[in-house]
């Protein structure tokens, strides 16, 4: 490395040597150079980098509003033009873990530099922020600080090197979680493997047939059941909304729903949609629906039933998403968001969801 890396380190009031619990309400302050565990960090880095500044904030202050505080902290971090950012490690400290995670997320997103922290598995900051940072696994006390610092620096150096991970088909700069001791970041990747899929399959099936132990490559989830809402009693007076995941959108796809692995949904006026529409979904043959969208979203029948008085009213907005290979967690979130929107509108009594 020709130039020394510029590093900024985030710490809480305790590790930042401002004070203990009684100082948890201090606001942001910046100290020049490394402080507390930052000294160990600097020693581990050696000539490769310089901790130019340490940004400190009280855990209580930060926890009051993590997003706002992360923004403020980000400005302080950015002013030092870092190549690399470390937060904590927070070990098992709950509020501290959230501060570290939020700072990492903000810095990573805005500055595009590697952001590294360290946390114990059970802290809230881990689950909330594992996707946005590289969080090394730690024990639940600060006794393992030297080992954790070593892990964090090793991981950071690997990230900063821009080295491609050749075992990935995508050849991204993405080191393996088990090799660098960090919490997986909710990503799935194709990785090269010594054995072919067929070889692994026959080998494991033979073990299963012989009654020997075998390891499945995937363990299916158990989904939690939702208690069913009570039935609709007065259908003749009820306003019903239509929802679909078949990808029916207004012509031009204004909300840019994707044909595959889509993450968005839209709310559209039914009358306008019926006049000009398109389908954005790569998982089924779209032409039948393009010819007659009622085949996916039964506008015609619902209007008829409303006229006949069998239902009270068809809600004039149609809620649409495209459900081709979207991961179930995001589908659940979209369901929550659509549900919240439906509740907000107050008049909707029930919904019909049509799927391909």
């Amino acid at each position, binding site marked *: 490395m020709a130039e020394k890396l510029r590093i900024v380190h985030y710490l809480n009031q305790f590790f930042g040597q401002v004070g203990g619990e009684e100082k948890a309400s201090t606001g942001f302050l910046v100290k020049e150079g490394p402080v507390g565990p930052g000294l160990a960090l600097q020693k581990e880095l050696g000539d490769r980098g310089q901790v130019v500044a340490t940004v400190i904030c009280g855990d209580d202050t930060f926890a009051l509003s993590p997003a706002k505080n992360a923004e403020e902290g980000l400005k302080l971090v950015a002013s030092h033009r870092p190549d690399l950012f470390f937060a904590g490690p927070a070990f098992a400290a709950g509020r501290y873990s959230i501060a570290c995670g939020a700072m990492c997320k903000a810095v990573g997103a805005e500055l595009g530099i590697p952001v590294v922290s360290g946390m114990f598995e059970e802290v809230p900051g881990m689950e909330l922020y594992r996707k946005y940072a590289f969080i090394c696994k730690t024990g639940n006390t600060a006794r393992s600080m030297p080992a954790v610092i070593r892990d964090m620096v090793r991981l950071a150096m690997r990230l900063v090197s821009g080295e491609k991970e050749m075992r990935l*088909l*995508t*050849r991204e700069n*993405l080191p*393996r*979680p088990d090799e660098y001791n960090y919490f*997986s*970041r*909710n*990503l*799935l*990747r*194709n*990785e*090269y*493997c*010594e*054995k*072919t*899929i*067929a*070889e*692994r*399959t*026959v080998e*494991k*099936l*033979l073990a*299963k*047939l*012989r009654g020997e132990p*075998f390891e*499945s*490559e*995937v*363990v*299916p*989830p*158990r*989904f939690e059941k939702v208690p069913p809402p009570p039935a609709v009693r007065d259908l003749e007076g009820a306003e019903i909304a239509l929802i679909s995941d078949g990808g029916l959108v207004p012509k031009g*796809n204004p909300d*840019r729903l*994707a*044909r*595959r*692995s889509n993450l968005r949904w839209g709310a559209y006026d039914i009358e306008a949609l019926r006049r000009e529409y398109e389908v*954005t979904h*790569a*998982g*089924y*043959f779209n*032409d*039948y629906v393009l010819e007659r969208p009622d085949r996916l979203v039964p506008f015609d029948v619902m209007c008829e039933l409303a006229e006949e008085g069998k239902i009270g009213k068809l809600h004039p907005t149609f809620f649409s998403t495209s459900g*081709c*290979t*979207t*991961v*179930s*967690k*995001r589908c659940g979130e979209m369901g929550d968001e659509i549900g919240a929107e439906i509740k907000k509108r107050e008049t909707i009594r029930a919904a019909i969801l049509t799927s391909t």
Partner: protein
Amino acid sequence: MKLEIESIDIKEIQSGSKTHAQEGVLYVNLKELEELILKDARIKSVDIHLVYPGQKVRVLNLMDVIQPRCKVDKVDADFPGFIGKMQIAGSGRTRSLQNVAVLVSNPCTNRKENGVLDMDGPIAEMSPYGKMNHISIAPYVAAGVEERDFENAVKAAGLKTAVYLARGADQHPASKVEVYDLDIPNLDRKSNLPRVACYYQLYSPQFDHLAISDPCFYGTDVHHLMPTVVHPNEVLDGGVVGWLAIKALDTYSIQNHGVIKELYRHHGKDLIFAGVVCAVANMEPAARVRSACMAANLVKNVLGAEGVILVKITGGMPHIDLSMAGEECEKLGVKTAIFTQPLTPVGTLSDTILFNAESLNLIITSSATFERTKISWKAEKFIGGTAETRVFCPDPIDQFAGDPVIDIEEYLLPGVLDCTGNSRVIVKEY
């Protein structure tokens, strides 16, 4: 049924006045090949190129990749039902050329999702085809020929080319002979070895272009295929071909079917290969249930298998047919190993699975099929298309073959991922 495949190692390809193979070099009379292809009136003209590893060439609009093979001891028996007379594939002797393939492009295609192969750079590194020599054909449609009809003509031209090349090498000595000998009616019933069958899901109609299924089984489409018992040699020897599009599958992969070859490798040593049940993914729920029941019955009560490997075709919907068949097999006491294809780059492995029956406790990841990768590489020459040919991306963006970086899903890169189980790929959580 016994099949012998004699392999000829080809190290180089060149154009020549006579199509023949000598000392590892395959000489191709390009004019003669062109005339052969143009016998089909649906084809107006055809571009033929010899393509080598390391060339800065991007091959576009790929519909298939085919290994050159021909029947040695039979006449008009190649790819029966497709270009050869209908008869059962899988017995006698077949000649196969190694290290060379036929690249079939359809430059007139209206399909949006078409295969791309670079002979240098990242794609060549990822795909076994990036290291082989190729004869690339790109036919153009004659006036008044309907789209699907032309697609069939292009496919047929590819198959004929594959046969023509293998025939031309008849004077060259073979470097090895592989024997696929499985006498299913007379399998050793007293053996202690477990009997294992392969449930081979060979199609899904959800992607059908213009709502017409691709013919891929003895020349016919399999949209409504009821579960069918076949001999594994029929799959290896030209009874089954790839779709009219690359979707993590091509004819070359089927000719070298990963799971079938692996079961043959273990046959007589660790297991008895009991046979193959072919089935398809269904769009109607009743057909799905019917297919699952019938397939499980064939596996258990006709093939007498104790174990079954359920091989999956590309797509989300096929997980359901596969898992329903798997559950029915387990209900009958047949132990299953089932494929799954995680279809999103985000989530955990558990998140992506579309079934969770407790009996399906051995699940193998058969690659993240739609994984996107950025290919940073510039071609100097384009075959089967031009620099302005669109490259498919699921996001509503525009990208073209001539762009310095393309964002492409791996299932469109032939040979990188393979539904038959040949890929040395596993899906891991990062």
